[in-house]
């Protein structure tokens, strides 16, 4: 007689019942379907009613306006844009401006946040007090005031373009922003970039190889001299062969403003500084909590192995803390992105300002424009969450959790 366990009978119907109906069984399933149907009906009614009412009131509807000419200008565009481009292009211009503020803000916020957290945890009394004051002041003031403060402070402190502060005669700082020389590509640009890319790829491959050698065979390979050659030597060699990759166009004061060169507008600076310092205060607390969550025995174990405090933090404590840090950190990244819509207060041309603001009042199509804007913010946030989830999953996996 075989002792093999008998296979349970197929339970698909049971599973469906439990999944949809919970404890209530088939009645529950029916209720769920009825509820979904009612929701769908309400949604349909709202949309169709809105359509008829807009039609009755002769309010233009639909997305046809996106192909019309916008007819207004924007003062920071990452892609080429003039007043004769379409509203769709305005949407893209605004979106890119929002993204650039968010990405730069997130990078700075993370760096500042980590530094402040380490200050707060430092055994040095002064450093930890400074960290504490930073956190308590910055996170307890409304971010809109901080943005206005930085904007008005930046503007008030800087002179007009004719009296601008000049650094070495090539970079100028005034209340119109920071003007820097802009690179103009020359004949040597393509081989230069190609060699640089090759150098980066080769360095990464080398690092991969060295890590494998370390973990599998216990061999230490010194890679930095090769990396130095790959990253600097190769591109420099192309300069000698093909000539300069680019020359710089120097800014010059002409009329009211500087002509030539690239410009970072004060609105961008104020917004980035305000958002990153504000968010950094929250990130600092998250990082501190993460580091404190690692048992102090780990730190002691590190020092008993002869590692310095910095090395212990970097190699042992922070990797374990990341598991705790990543989920709330994602929240802060999302907050920063969403807070960037406060740009409208200081005239930074972000998505809300140029699209949900100017374009909305030029076309009057509030429902479509607000829906598009909300949709794209949702998409940005979901993408950020997804990237951070993958990162969090990798961190946990590498720790074997």
């Amino acid at each position, binding site marked *: 007689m075989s002792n093999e366990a008998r296979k349970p009978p197929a339970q698909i119907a049971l599973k469906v019942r439990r999944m949809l109906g919970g404890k209530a069984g088939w009645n529950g399933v029916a209720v769920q379907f009825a509820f979904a149907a009612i929701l769908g009906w309400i949604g349909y009614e709202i949309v169709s009613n809105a359509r008829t009412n807009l039609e009755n*009131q002769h309010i233009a509807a639909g997305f046809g306006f996106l192909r019309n000419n916008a007819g207004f200008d924007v003062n920071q565009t990452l892609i080429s844009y003039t007043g004769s481009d379409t509203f769709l292009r305005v949407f893209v211009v605004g979106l890119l401006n929002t993204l650039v503020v968010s990405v730069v803000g997130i990078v700075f916020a993370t760096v500042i946040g980590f530094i402040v957290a380490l200050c707060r945890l430092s055994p040095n009394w002064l450093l930890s007090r400074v960290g504490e004051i930073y956190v308590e002041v910055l996170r307890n003031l409304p971010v809109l005031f901080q943005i206005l403060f930085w904007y008005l402070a930046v503007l008030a402190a800087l002179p007009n373009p004719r009296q601008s502060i000049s650094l070495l005669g090539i970079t100028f700082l005034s209340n119109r922003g920071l003007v820097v020389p802009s690179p103009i590509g020359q004949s040597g640009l393509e081989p230069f970039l190609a060699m640089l890319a090759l150098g980066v790829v080769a360095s990464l491959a080398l690092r991969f190889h060295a890590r494998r050698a370390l973990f599998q065979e216990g061999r230490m390979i010194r890679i930095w001299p090769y990396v130095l050659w790959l990253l600097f030597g190769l591109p420099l060699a192309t300069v000698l062969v093909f000539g300069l990759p680019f020359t710089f166009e120097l800014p010059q004061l002409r009329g009211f403003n500087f002509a030539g060169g690239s410009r970072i507008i004060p609105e961008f600076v104020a917004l980035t500084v305000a958002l990153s310092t504000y968010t950094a205060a929250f990130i600092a607390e998250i990082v501190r909590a993460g580091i404190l969550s690692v048992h102090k025995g780990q730190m002691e174990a590190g020092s008993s192995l002869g590692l310095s405090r910095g090395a212990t933090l970097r190699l042992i404590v922070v990797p374990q803390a990341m598991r705790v840090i990543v989920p709330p950190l994602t929240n802060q990244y999302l907050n920063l992105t969403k807070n960037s819509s406060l740009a409208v207060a200081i005239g930074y041309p972000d998505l809300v300002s140029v699209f949900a603001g100017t374009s909305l009042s*030029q076309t009057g199509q509030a429902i479509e424009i607000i829906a598009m804007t909300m949709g794209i913010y949702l998409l940005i946030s979901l993408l950020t969450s997804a990237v951070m989830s993958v990162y969090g999953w990798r961190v946990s996996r590498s720790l074997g959790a």
Partner: protein
Amino acid sequence: MKRVTLALTLALAAGLSAQAADAQTLKTVKDRGMLSCGVSQGLPGFSSPDDKGNWTGIDVDVCRAIAGAIFNDPTKVKYVPLSAKDRFTALQSGEIDVLSRNTTWTISRDTSLGANFTGVTYYDGQGFMVKKSLKVNSALELNSASVCVQTGTTTEQNLADYFKANNMKYEVIAFATNDETVKAYEAGRCDVFTTDQSGLYANRLKLANPNDHMVLPEIISKEPLGPMVRHGDDQWFDIVKWTLFAMITAEELGVTSKNVDEKAKLENPELKRVLGSDGNFGEQLGLTKDWVVRIVKTVGNYGEVFDRNVGAGSPLAINRGLNNLWNKGGLQYAPPIR
């Protein structure tokens, strides 16, 4: 945030109310006992609150005149301050009954917003203001300048057109509200502040040293400013339209807030028609026989309103110019009341 809230209100209003279009605005206003009037967030001469919170200005007087005609009480107005961006949404969603907020009459606004302009309260045009120290005498010398402007206005588009047509470069910095724009101009963020010329004079008074700034002579656009009402209620459209015409007609006939009672007693057939002792025009509008008398007693005739708010009797001291009566060299003209 207000913008988003308004848009959502509009979406909900459009979605949930089955019969929003043919609402009886006059009845709604009477039932509420209050006229809800969209005005600016503070533009001296047109609509601005004083230190006690009383609103004054040409646009405000239009609201008061309507309230006067309906309730015989100019205080029965609720003023809703709106930014340039929010104004149309507020009207569409039914938050206000009439938008009287220095709004330029254009074909796109008249046809695509589900609203109608009822007339022109002020013929304006866009101009530029600069600091005198820049030594600029003409808008054509503004190549490469930075320009501060309020977003969501026709101004922004005229600006783009003008600089493009004259082959000049410029940098535009657009702010959400008038006050933010003026503040940035004063802080030196831009060389030029542009808006309707009346607005330039009004905003110049807000600056710390008005005399350091000058308005350039060029007028680069036509900006007829007037009140707006929603589509779908022709009676309400007529009331708002004829309130302004009544003010202009009163000026044509020499009827003022001071002499209206004596004029009403005269045996002049035109005066009798206009001031209600003959005919039933007021009742046909849904108002009372003496609607013009009520309006003139409340705010005065068009000339009085102009002088008190933006003309000789005000700090702005703007000339009548285009806003004079048609028979005195201007454009203000009312169809006959008969």
